[in-house]
């Protein structure tokens, strides 16, 4: 345990910071941005599984995010279900739709998979905008209720009207997602996803049923997209069809690439830093997309594993530098 703490102290420090953060009384804007960043983190972690670890570029991730959001919105407003039931139902619904969509699309490879999932995303956007009876159409879906308060045995109840409570709720689900991803990535299941990314033919020769594994990865990824979508519906209290738009998918891809593909911390770093950069560049309006284009190209060329990969190699280089310096001194002393 002691050894474990010494190795992972940095992560525990971060967790502690995240836990005590609301005590500093941040403004409502900062709270909202952090809650949204947490939601984007969950969605990006899902995307990371299918795109980063399994190497299949799903462009339907935003659509599944939207399906999760609408599922929670519709179940809580029209069916009167509790948020606590609607959220897992929405996540499982996304996994199930992922199964059905994966069956045909995952038979295609590379760019064809990207295009077919993009097509599905566009269909979802059209449905969300036009099936007015179900989704409210382009007018949107208003008045999604806050989650029911959780009763506590002695101290009353936790209600979710304050941003701090929603912050902790999203933080809880983010940690849960991270834990699941950690378990998956460092298991044989995770290795077989990476084997498919490395060399699909060889993975097959080794005895991995590549189709079934890709389908599983796609379903788990979409499960977390749906979870993030459901939390988004809860946070905003209203939905518009643009939440299913493929622009959202590309935002998530930007978080993933700038944060670090196929790392566990990368999606979270990306989903927190990028929205804050966007916010800081608000003054220059639409030109900020130009800056993102440049950032993306620079990142792909010089930091193919994003901020996380860049930081890791910088850390290793500094460590090497100091080790060499120390060694150098010792050699000098010996001679």
């Amino acid at each position: 345990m002691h050894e474990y703490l010494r190795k992972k102290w940095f992560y525990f420090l971060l967790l502690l910071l995240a836990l005590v953060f609301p005590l500093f009384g941040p403004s409502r804007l900062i709270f909202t941005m952090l809650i949204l960043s947490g939601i984007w983190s969950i969605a990006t972690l899902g995307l990371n599984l299918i795109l980063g670890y399994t190497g299949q570029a799903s462009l339907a991730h935003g659509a599944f995010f939207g399906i999760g959001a609408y599922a929670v919105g519709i179940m809580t407003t029209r069916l009167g279900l509790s948020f606590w039931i609607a959220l897992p139902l929405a996540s499982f619904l996304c996994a199930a739709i992922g199964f059905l969509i994966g069956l045909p699309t995952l038979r295609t490879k590379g760019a064809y998979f990207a295009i077919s999932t993009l097509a599905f995303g566009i269909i979802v956007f059209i449905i969300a905008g036009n099936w007015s009876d179900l989704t409210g159409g382009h007018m949107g879906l208003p008045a999604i209720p806050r989650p029911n308060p959780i009763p506590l045995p002695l101290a009353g109840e936790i209600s979710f009207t304050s941003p701090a409570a929603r912050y902790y709720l999203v933080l809880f689900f983010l940690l849960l997602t991270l834990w699941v991803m950690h378990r998956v990535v460092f298991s044989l299941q995770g290795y077989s996803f990476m084997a498919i990314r490395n060399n699909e033919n060889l993975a097959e020769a080794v005895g991995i049923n590549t189709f079934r594994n890709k389908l599983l990865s796609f379903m788990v990824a979409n499960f977390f997209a749906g979870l993030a979508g459901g939390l988004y519906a809860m946070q905003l209290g209203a939905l518009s069809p643009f939440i299913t738009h493929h622009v959202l998918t590309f935002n998530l891809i930007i978080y993933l690439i700038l944060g670090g593909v196929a790392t566990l911390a990368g999606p979270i770093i990306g989903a927190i830093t990028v929205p804050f950069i966007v916010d800081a560049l608000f003054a220059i309006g639409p030109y900020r997309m130009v800056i993102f284009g440049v950032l993306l190209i620079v990142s792909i060329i010089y930091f193919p594993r994003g901020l996380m990969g860049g930081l890791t190699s910088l850390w290793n280089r500094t460590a090497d530098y100091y080790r060499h310096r120390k060694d150098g001194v010792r050699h000098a002393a010996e001679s």
Partner: protein
Amino acid sequence: MLKLEQVSTRIGGYRAVNSVCLEVRQGEFVSLIGGNGAGKTTLMRTIAGALKPFQGSIQFMGAAIEKLPPDRIVRAGLCLCPEGRRLFPQLSVYKNLILGAYTRRNDRLGVQRTLSQVYEIFPVLKVRKEQPAGTFSGGEQQMLAIARALMSEPKLLMLDEPSMGLAPLMVEKVSEIITLINVEMGTTILLAEQNAHMALNITQRGYVIENGKVVLEGSSAELSDNEQVRKAYIGA
């Protein structure tokens, strides 16, 4: 153990394998000799299930396997170590090996046992188990590819040109290890090779394949003495 009858496979309309009959018996060490484009790799890939024959039957341990998907064939105990020492380059040596035992994932103890066996045959893999496989030299990569194939505990191991692109000294080492696997571990081996000299030296029987057809078969000693084989493949 393995029996092919009149197997033909098309690649883009061309009959790369043309009604091949071939048999490998339990415990044997058999070579498949042929030049570039003779159809060795296509035949191996057909047996492993990566390609489907349009004609003929393939029997393994008494069951027809020509219609099974590759993962089921590996599970049945027939493993192909593909040509060109293919590895998962970004993954560590250890992960490559564990993935080799993918079909045995519910048998943890058995996998650990095989892993220590494999480390015994290839000590260098144990020393460098955390290193990404892509950073290895050619010979080491070939060793790792063979080791990974062994992790599935195959009853029949198919090796597709393990000597390809290796230095002569390394070829010798690889052939020593393959022989060891056949003799010590009792694994049946089908070895496809362009290097007939090396293959006929270590195997018991052999087939010569040309333009997708088996043109000669016999004991390795007979084939080594055969005038045609000497001229075409050994160059002496």
